[in-house]
Each structure stands twice: as C-alpha cells, then as structure tokens.
C-alpha cells in the first residue's frame, strides 16, 4: 500500500431541496492508458497536446457496422466520408476494410486519387464542383452526385463536348419530419423537382443514371427519418423502373448515424439516449425490400457513415497549463488544447477525464483552452477531481471532424499519432513548425526591413 494521496480541501456550496435521481457524484475512472500505452509516455515522446487514433477501434467499428447492415441486406458498400477525417493513414484503414471514398470537393477528390482510389470507387458529392473537377470525374468514371440544376446543365454540356458518358446520381432531399429540413442540398422530392431532374437525365444518352442519393442530416437521434427517407427513395426507384426502365446500381442512404458523443443540451449520456445502430439499420434496409422488378440483381446499398465509425477511435491528450479561481469562486482549468483543435466542442460535451490517479472529491469547474479569446471554452461546467498544473487530461470521442476542422489560429497544430493494431505507435501527421506555416508566405521587399526602438 502506497502513500495515501493528499487531497486538497474544497469548499462545495450545498443546495438543499435539489434532488438528484442519479445519486451523488459519479466516480470517473482516470484514463491512464490508451490501448495499453501510458498517456505519460505518449506525451513524453510526442508532446502535448496530442491527437491519438486507434487503428483497432476504427476497424472494429467498421466491421461491426458492416455486420449490422450485411445481416439485414445482402449488398452493402461503405464509402468513407473524407470530410470526417481525411488523414491518409485513417482513410487507408477504411479502404483496407473495403470502403470506397466519399468526397465533397476537388481537394478531397484529389486526396483520394493520390491515395490510390480509382475514380469508379469515388462518390463525388457536394454543391460546388468546378468544370475541371467534373471533367476529371467524368473521365475517371467517378460517381457524380448532382446537387442542383446548374450542375446538371453543366454536365450535359461537358459530356457533349468530351463525347464521354458520365456516371451520375442525383441527391434527393425530402421532408422526413425533422427540423431543420435539409432542403438546400439536392432536388426536392415532394415538389416534384427530383422527378423532373431524373427525367432530364434519363433522356440524355451521355448521362448514365446509376443511383440515387440522399443525406437527411447529421447526428440523427432517431431511426424513423431514415425509414421515411428510404421509403421515398424506393418509391422513386420503382417509378424509374416502371416508367423509364432504369435499373439502378445503387441507392445511397448517406451518413448521419450518431456517434457516442453527447450533444450540448442533451440530458442523458449519448450511450443511454441513442437507439442502437441495429435500429437504424432496420429502418434503412427495411424499405429496400419494397423495390419492384429487381429480381436477383438488387441495387447495392451505399452508406457514407463517418462520425459513427471514427469518433470513439480518437483521443486528445492535453496538459493543464494553469489553475484559476473565477470571480465567483468557481474552479477553472486552462489546458493546452482549445477550440482551435476541437471545433466540435461547440456542440459536443466531449468527455474529459484526468490521465492520472486523483482523489475522489469532485468540484464543479470550467475548462478553457489556451487561446486568448473569450470563446475558447471546452466545458463550462464539468465535475472534476482536483488536478495540478502539468498533469494531463484525456478528451474522448474526438476522431470525427477535428482533424479536418482544426485551425492554425494563435498557435500551431500538434502531432497526430496512431496506435497500430499490431502494436506500436506511428506518427501519422507531424506537429506543425513555424517554417511549415510560413512557407507559403511572401513578403514584399519593401516590407522586409524594419527597426524598432
């Protein structure tokens, strides 16, 4: 038995009459290791803050989701959503698991191509595709998901000019009973716009209609909207089949499956509040059996899940820079990772736990990032045991939309490492340096010299 840990005294204000059905403060286990590698060692070797990805968890997530869908519908294809996390190493893990690439810009398209993904395995989404981008996608037989009429007109013009056939689908939006209605992307179903667009595509010999696409939202907290969406998509597919003899190769249900992150304003923990993925899978695959006249060549179901496959595979290790008392006496921690790295903390209550053993008494605290900006707040209210400057914390569920939405603001972006399934740690993105940030800058000669007194 080691020396008993010292716990500094805390004064907690007691509120009488407020009952808490969850009982007293929850005991949260410190996260001293990630995938059996001590947090301390990781920081010592790669610095702080540090993003840590787990290859094992990514693969496990992908296989679990694949199993859930493939035991409900025979033909399922995943397409890795690049915008969720387009680190090469991360994308490669999903490509190795058999996922195609889902990109929403030429930048992402080029990334996928450079990684070795063939055009025909790229789903090209997004409302802003340039002429050059479309030309390339047509030549490389990528699956172009048309977002609006202007894109359709341009495709007609380009295919005529090049004498090539484009593999196309349209994105369809519908009223699935959720707010906000995502009607700014794609063609609307209810007002007939989608059918009009499809008619135009069907009669054009240079456009090959291969699928239908929809993406009804993100972090969907109920499976029912998917059932409504897929029912409408199947109705559209049946209409295409009976009226225009179009045999679709795939139906793309988009992404939007929730991860186990808890939203701000959500009372229960995500794990408890959200339906199981099985229920989403039932809602998405159920309506597919209403497809008519497809015989034994049913269309493939494409899923563009991102968040649900990667959020819990990412960890952010951060170091406590300082402790403070706010004016009202509330405890505040300043850590070296802020909203520059966690854009997602605007809507998520990222789970945050100490990275070392602590006492059991908890105190309500705010956690601020390192930026000299008032908005840089990771947690306004979080119950934490006492920690000291220089100790570490681990933020959970940071795999999605962090490494693509982070910003080089005020400070540099840190290293990203991946803990490999077969053991060992690999740096998948080096921490930025001043040279890296300044290499694109050009200073006019007249501004190169100054003298300060």
């Amino acid at each position: 038995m080691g020396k008993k840990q010292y716990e500094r005294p805390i004064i907690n204000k007691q509120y009488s009459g407020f009952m808490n059905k969850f009982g007293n403060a929850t005991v949260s286990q410190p996260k001293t290791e990630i995938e059996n590698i001590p947090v301390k060692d990781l920081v010592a070797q790669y610095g702080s803050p540090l993003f840590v990805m787990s290859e094992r968890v990514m693969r496990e997530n992908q296989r679990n989701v694949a199993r859930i869908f493939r035991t409900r519908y025979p033909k399922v294809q995943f397409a890795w959503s690049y915008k969720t996390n387009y680190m090469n190493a991360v994308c490669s893990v999903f490509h190795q698991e058999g996922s195609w690439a889902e990109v929403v810009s030429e930048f992402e398209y080029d990334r996928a191509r450079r990684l070795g993904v063939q055009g025909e395995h790229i789903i090209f989404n997004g409302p802003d595709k340039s002429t050059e981008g479309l030309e390339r996608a047509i030549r490389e037989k990528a699956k172009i998901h048309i977002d609006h009429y202007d894109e359709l007109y341009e495709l007609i013009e380009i295919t005529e000019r090049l004498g090539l056939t484009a593999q196309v689908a349209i994105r369809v939006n519908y009223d699935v009973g959720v707010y906000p209605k995502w009607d700014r992307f794609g063609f609307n179903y209810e007002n007939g716009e989608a059918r009009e667009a499809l008619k135009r595509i069907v009669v054009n010999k240079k456009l090959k209609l291969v699928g239908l696409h929809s993406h009804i939202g993100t972090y969907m907290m109920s499976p029912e909207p998917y059932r409504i969406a897929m029912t409408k998509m199947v109705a559209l597919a049946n209409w295409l089949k009976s009226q225009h003899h179009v045999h679709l190769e795939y139906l793309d249900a988009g992404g939007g499956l929730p991860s186990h992150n808890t939203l701000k304003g959500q009372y229960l923990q995500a794990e408890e509040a959200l339906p199981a993925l099985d229920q989403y899978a039932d809602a998405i695959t159920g309506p597919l059996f209403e497809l008519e006249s497809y015989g034994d060549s049913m269309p493939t179901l494409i899923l563009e899940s991102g968040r649900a496959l990667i959020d819990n595979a990412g960890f952010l290790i951060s170091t406590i820079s300082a402790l403070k008392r706010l004016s009202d006496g509330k405890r505040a921690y300043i850590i070296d990772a802020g909203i520059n790295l966690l854009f997602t903390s605007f809507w998520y209550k990222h789970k945050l736990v100490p990275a070392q053993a602590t006492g059991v008494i908890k105190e309500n605290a705010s956690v601020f990032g390192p930026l000299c900006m008032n908005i840089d707040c990771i947690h306004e209210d979080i119950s934490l045991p006492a920690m000291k400057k220089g100790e570490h914390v681990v933020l959970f569920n940071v795999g999605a939309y962090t490494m693509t939405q982070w910003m080089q603001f005020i400070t540099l972006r840190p290293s990203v490492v991946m803990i490999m399934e077969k053991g060992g740690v690999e740096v998948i993105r080096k921490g930025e340096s001043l040279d890296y940030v300044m290499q694109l800058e050009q200073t006019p000669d007249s501004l190169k010299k100054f003298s300060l007194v």
Partner: protein
Amino acid sequence: MNILTLRTFIDTILYSYAQIFFSNRRWVGAALLIAAFVSPVIGLFALLGAVISTLLAQALKYNAERIRTGFYGFNGILFGAAGAYYCELTPLYVGFILVFIFVTFFASTSLEHYLASSFNLPGLSLPFILSLDIFLTFIKTFDWVHFKTNSVQPGFFEVIPEYIRLYFHSFGFILFQTDVLAGMIIAVAILFFSRVLFVNSIIAYALNYFLVKNLFPDPTPALYIQTSLNAILVAFALGGSLIIISRKTIILIVLATVMTLIFNIFFTSVFGVHGLPIFVLPFNVVVLATIYSLKFRQEQSDLVLLYFAPGSPEENYYYHQNRKSRFDKFRFVFPELPFFGEWKVSQGINGSITHKTDWRHAWDFVITDESGKEYRGNGLSPEDYFCYNTPVVAPLDGEVVRIVDNIPDNEINNPNLKNNWGNTIIINHGYGLFSSISHIKPGSFEVKKGDHVLKGQTVARCGNSGRSPVPHLHFQFQLTDRLGEKTYLFPLSQYFQRNAGETTLCTFDYPNEGDLVRNIEAHSTIRRAFDFRIGQEFELSWTLNGKQYTEHWDVKADSTNAVYIESSIGTVAYIHPKEKVFFMANVLGSKKSALYYFYLLSISVPLGYGERLRWTDTFPISATIGKAVRFVSEFMLVFTNLLSSSAVLWFEKQDDPKKQFIVRSTHTRLGRGVLGWFKANGTGSIVIDSDARISELYFETGKTNFQATIREKEMPV
C-alpha cells in the same frame, strides 16, 4: 473430291478400323489396316468393305458426324475380310461379296437403330455375324464355291512358345489373319492405345487358356483362338470401353470370360450342325446381355456404363472420376443459407445439445462479432443479441405451407419447453423437399400460408421463441409439412465458409459447427466477366514459349443445352455455370490452344468476392498430365490411380481499372508410389478489367510460358 473431303474420307476409313477395337485414334486404325494387309488379299477386301460402306452411307446422306466416326464402316471391314478368308476368290464369288457388303450395310444400320432405340444398346458386330452366316448359307448351295482350308501359320515366330503365339493369333484372327505378325502389330497398337485394355487382354487370355487347357481333352489351336478372341473382346468391352474401369471390372472380366467360354461351346454346338462359323457371336451376346442387365440396377454407382462419347478407357476413367468428385454431389435444386450476411453455426449436424436421433440433420445459427461474442452490453435481453430481429429469408423458391406465430419471445436463458419449436415457417420446395426455420420473432412474418416465396426473399425476423435460451435460428430440411418432423440430410448448394481467418468455397456441402458461413453475394464485375452467352465471339492473340498464335472462340450450345466454347484450333471446353459459381466441366481436343489454358485457369470461380478466400478444384489426369508419365501408371490403373492434378485458386483485388480482379491459381500435379518422383507445378492468372471483361491470361510452369490477350468481338446491334 477436294483435299478436305479426301482427308475426311481417309479419316473415316481409319476410324472404321479403329472402331473394331473400341478405339477412336486414327493411328490405331492405320495399324489395323496394315495388320490386315499381312495377308494382302484379305487386307484388300477389308479395305473394300470399309470404302463401299462409307461411300454408301455418304451417298444416302446418313448423319455426317456418325459416318466420320467410322460407325458405318467397321462391319463392312469385317465382312470383306471374312468373305476373302472363307472361299477361293472367283469373279462371281467376288461379285457376291460386293453385293453382301451392301446387305451388311443395311443390316448394320437397321440393327444398330433397332438395338439403340429399343434397348439403348450398341450394335457391336452383330450385323456382321448375321450377314456372314446368311452369306455362307447362301453360298454353300453352289458347287462352284470352294472353301479354303485355313490354318494358323507360325512363320518365323515358331521360336515363341505356343501359348504366347496363340495370344497373338487371337488378335490376328479378329481380322481373319493367319500370320502371327498381324496379331503382333495389333497387340502393340493396343498396348500404345490403352494399357488398361492390354492388361485386360492378358487376363482374359490367360484365364481362357487355363480353362480350355484343363476342361477340354486335347484342345486344338483353333479352339484356343476362337474362345480367346471372344474372351479378349469381351474384356475390352466390359473392362473399359463400355463400362468405366474400377476394381470391380476385373471381377466382371473374370466372370465374363467363363461365360464367354460357355457361350462359345453352346453356339458352336448349335451352329456347327449347319456348318456355320460363330466367330464373334459369343462376344456380342455376352456383352449385350451384361450391359442390358446392368441398366436395370436401382443404383448405378458401381460398374458405371459409359455415358459420354468414349475416349480411351483411361480417359473415360479420368473424366468419370473428375466428374464424379466434382459434380456427383450436385442436386436438382440449389438451396442457400436462410439469412443475409455472415452467421456462425452454433450447433451443427449431430450437435451435442439438441440435434440428435431423428433431428440430427439440422443447424443452429447465430451472429457473432470479431471477438466471438453474440451480444452487446450485458446480453440480458434478446435485443442485445446481434441476430435478434435480423431478416430470415427463404432458402429456396417454394410455397409457404405452415406458419406458427404468436409464441412470445423468451427472456434470456428461459427457454419455452412447452412450445419446443417456437414460431416457425415451413416452406414446400417441391420434389418432396421441405425446409423449416424456427425460433422466429412473434408477429414478424412478412408472408402468409399459401404465399409463393422466392429464394432470398425476406419471410420473417429472427427471434427467441420456443426452446431457445438465446436468440438464434434453427434450420432443417424435412420431407413433410409437419411441425417437428424428423430432419432430412440435404446439402446447401453454395456458400463461403470462414474458419481461423481463411475463407473457402463450399458447394453442396454441410456447414460444420463453429464455422462462419455466408451466402455468396455475386459481384457484378466477376459475374459479368464469366457470363458466357451463346453467340459471343472472342479474338485472342497469345504466345507460348515466345511463339505467336491467334485464336478465335465461339460460345455455342449443343443439343442437350450444354454450353461450350469452341476454339478455332479445335479445342472445346464445356462450361457449367451454376447460379453463383462458374465451373469448367470438361475440355476436349488440342491442348495447344488458349482455350485449353483458360480451362485450367478457370476450373471453378465463385462469382462473388471474398477477402482471404481460397478454393481448390481437381482436373482429369488425362487433361493435365503428359502421356509418358501416364503410360507407366496406367498399367496399374484398374487397381489404383497413382496421379493427381489439382489447383488452388484465389482472387486478388487491385485498384487498377485495367486489372480490377485477378483470379490467381497454383497448379500441382503429383505422383505417388512408384511415380513418387513426379511433381509438376504451375501458376496462372486471369485478369478482369473494370469493364468486367476477361482481358489477359497467364500460365507458367518450368517448361511453358503462356500469355494471352482476349478481346470480345462486338456484337452487331
């Protein structure tokens, strides 16, 4: 007559000769033709018989293919030879021989047809015997006809002991040759044509010799020859040419030799009264009677009668063995697993929990994750189990004949012992086959009694009703629509099976406990690549060891609807596309063609992709191992087969539009026993591009380096 038809004509004559000894080799025919000319006059009349019969068949427009095989010629040969053998040749007599060649021709065509259509039997040389005896009876009435006295001539070969000489004489006398030399030529030709027949001839001759020597007082050489030539021909027919060889054919030969001797004596006694020769009549009677009676067996798995165009007995054996090992397990219907995705067999056939006695031929299935767990969370409610509420599909087309619903799902580990089967669906698949799926979720049925369902159609959801501690599916085949009927052992037609990370292809097999199994999900690219349609044409250019060739393929179907690819080089490959697996059934003709290599490379290909998937298949020995190696082993073929030839195949997926899939294979040809030294390896690949076209073929062994590019000929729209 142009060169082509002259060549065809010569072929026909040679095949006619070869047919006498059940051979389809021209060189065997040529050897027999030469053997007949040891006695030139008889040789000439034999040839005349062949030529006249063939010309007659051509002039009267009989089936051209049958003419070419020598079918109409060989009775003519025998009659021509016999005519010249029995009497002194005078112009008038020769005239009669010619007339009787016509008679023989009509006798053979009508007898052949009668035996074939009424009894499904070959005509053999019965027409020849019939017309010979009519001819001799007719001729005998004239006093200007002089019968010859023929006797066997030892010639230079007197040094050879008599019991060996008589062996050759027996061969020679089949062509009415009295010289030992003729018999020797024939024996050598037989040896090179087929070791099996050669061994048979020795067995039959030796046994017959022993019997004759010990049963008859003072047997004459003529008796030895008459009886042993029949015995040898019987051994040929029953020991390889009309029945596929096995150890049992040896017993058959022994019995048939005794029987032949009895018939020899019987016919000699009956016909001898009228002074008529019986010649090969005992052979005809014994063979036809044996074959005919064998046809009435309930099960034909032993002593299999030849059911395809005959090659040499060895080739027939190899072909039959290959077909048997690959396709005998096939059934008339193709049931598949009753679910989507990969499931684990939690209890197999003869399982230790409940699959016992009358209910042993059943499977239980559950879904597990990577670590083998069946549930998430603490697994305390059915909803936690991965398989709960997943779709259950019809294993085969059929009619829903029974649905049991409304039995509630159990709590975990609280099986319902009152309603053992739980919610169940029973489907009638026709042909007396029913399938039953149990432990379904109450209220989840999507079909009702009387509905017609298609294979793969969702019928319900997996639940936890009945005697089910945790959610799972119970699946069995049975022979009635009764709930809880005893199980019937019936295989699943095609699935992938994963065990210890390795996936393999199973066809008409039974999933084992602990295996992870899934239905094959056809990949559109692979499926299109192997979708050979009648009328398709392909152009190939290929190199073999550096030499350049071109080839043309046509996809055709024969009168039995079997689809085959025909190459311009003369190779024919029969394909056997079965739902989700492509099979090469057989290859015939030249081995120096791209089609032959394609046969090797695509012996079987599942039309769905699988990670770490490997599958094996076997080839007929004659299609893959050279003659020299086979020559030695075939002396023992009746007892044991010393050679094997197989391939391991797998897919390689590449993100390259020119090479989207590669079907790779390693080929192993092995000898054992005295051929233990023999081993040959090869590697090959088929390249499929992203347009789902087979574009390139490669095959390499130590000696051969084959490469080909394939282009499909555009079909006129």
